[in-house]
C-alpha cells in the first residue's frame, strides 16, 4: 500500500512539474526552484520507501547525508566561480 502511495506522490509531482513547465507564470522566478524542490521531494521519497532508507539503520541515512554534503562545497564554488565577477589573473 505504501509503495502505491509513494508511486502516486511521484506521479503527482511529475504532473505538477509538467504543468509548471507548460505555464509557470504564476510562480514567476520561483518556477525553476519549485521544479527542483519537487524533484528533491521525489528523490527523498524514493530513498525513504523504495530504497528502504527509513527502515535501515540510522547510520545509512547519516552516511547518505554526508555523501550529499560532500558535493555541496563544489556546487557553491562552481556557482561562485560563475556568478561573482572575475578579478582576472594576478600578475
Amino acid at each position: 500500500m505504501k509503495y502505491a502511495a509513494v508511486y502516486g506522490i511521484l506521479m503527482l509531482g511529475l504532473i505538477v512539474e509538467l504543468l509548471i513547465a507548460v505555464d509557470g507564470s504564476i510562480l514567476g522566478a520561483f518556477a525553476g526552484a519549485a521544479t527542483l524542490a519537487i524533484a528533491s521531494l521525489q528523490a527523498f521519497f524514493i530513498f525513504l520507501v523504495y530504497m528502504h532508507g527509513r527502515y535501515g539503520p540510522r547510520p545509512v541515512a547519516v552516511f547518505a547525508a554526508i555523501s550529499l554534503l560532500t558535493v555541496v562545497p563544489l556546487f557553491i564554488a562552481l556557482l561562485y566561480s560563475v556568478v561573482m565577477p572575475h578579478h582576472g589573473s594576478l600578475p
Partner: protein
Amino acid sequence: MVDWHPLKRWLYTTNHKDIGILYLLTSLYFFVAAGLLALTFRTQLAIPSNTFLQPDEYNQAVTTHGLLMLLWVLTPLGAAFANYFVPIQIGARDMAFPRLNALSYWVYLASGLLALSSFLAGGGTADWGWTTYAPLNTVEFSPAVGGSMMGLALMLLMASSIVSTVNFLVTIFRLRAPGMSLMKLPLFTWAWIFTSLLMLWAFPSFVSALTLLISDRTFGTVFFTSTQGGPLLWDHMFWFFGHPEVYVLLLPGFGITGDLLSTFSRRPLYAKKIIIPCLAIASILSFTVWAHHMFMTGISQSLLEAFNVTTELISIPFAIIVIAYILTLRGGSIRFATPMLFAVGSLGLFIIGGITGVFNSSVALDTAFRGTFWVVGHFHYTIVGGGLTGLFGGLYYWFPKITGRMYSERLGKIHFVVYIIGFNLLYFPMHLLYDMPRRIFTYDSSLNAGFYIGSLFVGYNFLITIGAFTFGISQLIMFANLLWSARRGPAADKDPWGGYSLEWGVPSPPPEFNFPEGVPVISATGVTYRPVAMADGGHADAGYGAGSHEEHWSHWPIVVAEGAGIALWGLLMNLPALLLGTGILAVAFIGWGRETLRGRFSEPIEAVGEKWPFARLENVSLGMWVFIFGEIAFFGTLFGAYVFLRMNSLLTGFVWPRPGEVHNIFFGGFNTIVLLTSGLTMVFALTFARRGSYRGLQGSLVATFALGAFFMVNKAFEWRELFAGGFTFSTNTASSIYYVLTGVHGAHVVAGLTALVYLMVKALKASSTTQAAGAVEIFGIYWGMVDAVWVFLFPLLYLL
C-alpha cells in the same frame, strides 16, 4: 610435466594476503618505472640548454611520472599493506568480498598496463602534466591517441579503487572480531578508514571529469573547448578530487608512522583519542580546500579568501597529530631499528612539507610561488616525505611478518641514510628555485641559480639531479636487501618488534585464514582465542570454514580485468579488439554469476563479532549502500558541471535552449513514468519475495526488466531523433551535457538490466522466494538510485 599449481594460485587467488603481496610487487614495479622516468627528465634538467630529451618526450616523461607515482604507486602501496594487514588487525579471516578484492587488483594491473602501453600508441602518451589541465588535454593541443588511452586507464584505475573502497569499508565495519571496538583499532586501520572514505567521495569526481574529457576527445563533445566550460570547469572538477587525493596518499604512511613510533618507543600512542578525530576533521576539511590550487585562475576574490582560510585551518589537525607523535616518543625506550628510522624521518620530512604548505595557503605568497619549483619541493616533502617514507617504514616493519624472515638491519640503515641524503639533495634545493618555472623542458643559463665552492659553480638543478640519482640508488639497496633477505634472511619470530596489534599474535607468515588458535576475542586484559558462535548458530574452532585453498580460487576476476583492458584498448585502437574485449567481459560476467549460483566459490566463514554501527545490515547490502554513496558524489559532480555550464552560458552570451525547443517534454515525461513504474514493480518484487509468492516475484521482475528495457528503447529513439534534427554531441554545451548525462544514466540502466537477468535466473533456481529476497532487496537499492537520479535529470534537461 610442468606444475602449474603455484602459477594458478597467484592468478586465481582471492586471499587477502596474496592480493596484498600482488599489490606490493606491482606497485613497486610501477615505482621503478616512474622513478626511471624521473631520472630521465632530471638528467635533461641537470644543465642549461640540454638536448637530452625533446620537448614532447620531456612532457610525456613528467606526465607519466606524476600519474604513475601518485595513482599507481603510492595509493596501491598503501592498499598492499591494507590488504595484507587490515583484515588481520581487525581479527577477520579475509575481506568481506574476496572475489571483488581480486577484481580490484587485476583491474588495477590492467589499468597500469594500459597506461604504460599508451607510450606505444602512435604519437606517444599523455603530455599535459599530471594535472591534465584544459585546454592542454583537448585534441587540439594533445592529438595523440595515447592521451585518450591514459584517460581510459585512469578511469579503469578509479573503478578499481572504488570497488576496493567498498570492500574495505564493509570489512572494517562488519567483520571485526568480538571485542574489537572501533577505538581499539590500530592507527593504520583508522588511517585506512579515512583513506577509503576520501577515495569513496573524491574519486568519483575524477571519474566525472574524465568522463567529460574522454567524451570530448572521443565523441567530440565541447566541455573543455567551449567558453562555457573550458579550463575553469576542469580545474574545479579535477582539484575537487586532487586535493583529497593528497590525503589519500598521505594518510596510510602517516598512520603507519604513528604505529611505528608507538611500537619502537614502547609506549602507547599519545592522545590516540584526539588523533582519530583530527584525522576525521582533516578528511572533512580536505574537501573544502581544493581551490587553493586555483588562486591564479581568476576565480572570484570571495572564493580566494574562503579557500585561504580553509587551507590554513587544515594545518591545525595535522599540527596536533604531529605534536602527539612527538609526545609519544617522550619518556619512551626508543629502539632505532630501520622501521623506526623511517618513521622518524617521515615525521621530520612531513613537518618541512607541512610548513611550506602553510606558505602556499596564502594568496599573496602563492602568487609568487605558483608554477615554480618551490611548489614541486613542497609537495614532494609532503607526499614522498610524509607518505612514501612512512610506507617504506611499514615495508621494513612488516617484512618479517610477510616473509617469515628478517631483513638485514645493516643494509636497512644504510638505505635510510642514503635515502635521507638523496631525498634532501633532491627536494630541498627546489625551494631555492622559487623563481624558476616548473613546467619547462629546458632553461637558459640566466635561470641557472646555484652557488660557488671556491671557483666552482654548482647549479641547484645539477645538485637536484645528483640527489635524484642518489635517491634512486638508495632504492636499489632496499631491493637488494629485501630480495636477498626474503630467501636467505634469518627466520623471524612471530613478534620481533613487540608490536601490539593482532598481526603480531599470529605466526610469520600468517596461515591462510590468519588465526590458527581460534577466533581472537579482545578484552581489557588482552587477546584470547576461542571457538565462537557463528551466525548460523553453530560453533567455530580454529579450522572453521577453511576448506582447501582451491575452494577460494576464482578465475573470473582476472578474466573481467583482461576483458576490460582489451575492450578499452580496442575502443581507441582497433574494432576487433573492442569486440573481443566486450565478448570476454560478457563471458566473464556470465561465468561469475554461474559460479555464484552454483556455489562453486566458497567464502571464508566469519565469526560473529563487532558490527557497530551497521549491525542491522548484511554485508552485501552495506556494500551496495557504500557504492551508492560514491554514486552520489559521481552524479553530484556531473550535476555540478551542468550547473556551471548553464550559469556560465549567461555570461558568455550562449542562449541555452528553452524548454520544449529541442526536447519533447511530454515524451520525456512519458519515459519518466516508464522508469518510475519500474521502480514500483521492483519494490513489488521484494514484497512478493518476502510473502513467498513465486509467481508475483517472477512477474514483478519481468515487468521491471520490460519497463527498464522500454525506457532504453525510448531513449535510443529520442537520441536518433535529436541527431537527425542536428542536435549532436558537438552542437553546443547543452547538447554535450545532455548526451553525457543521459548516456551515463543509460549505462547505469543497462547495468541494472544485466543484473536483473541474473536476479531472474537466481529466482528461478531458488528453492524458496525468501531465499532470493536478499538479492532482490539489494538490487532494489540500486534501482531506486537509478530512479532517484532520473527524477533530477528529467527537470534539468527537459523542463528548465
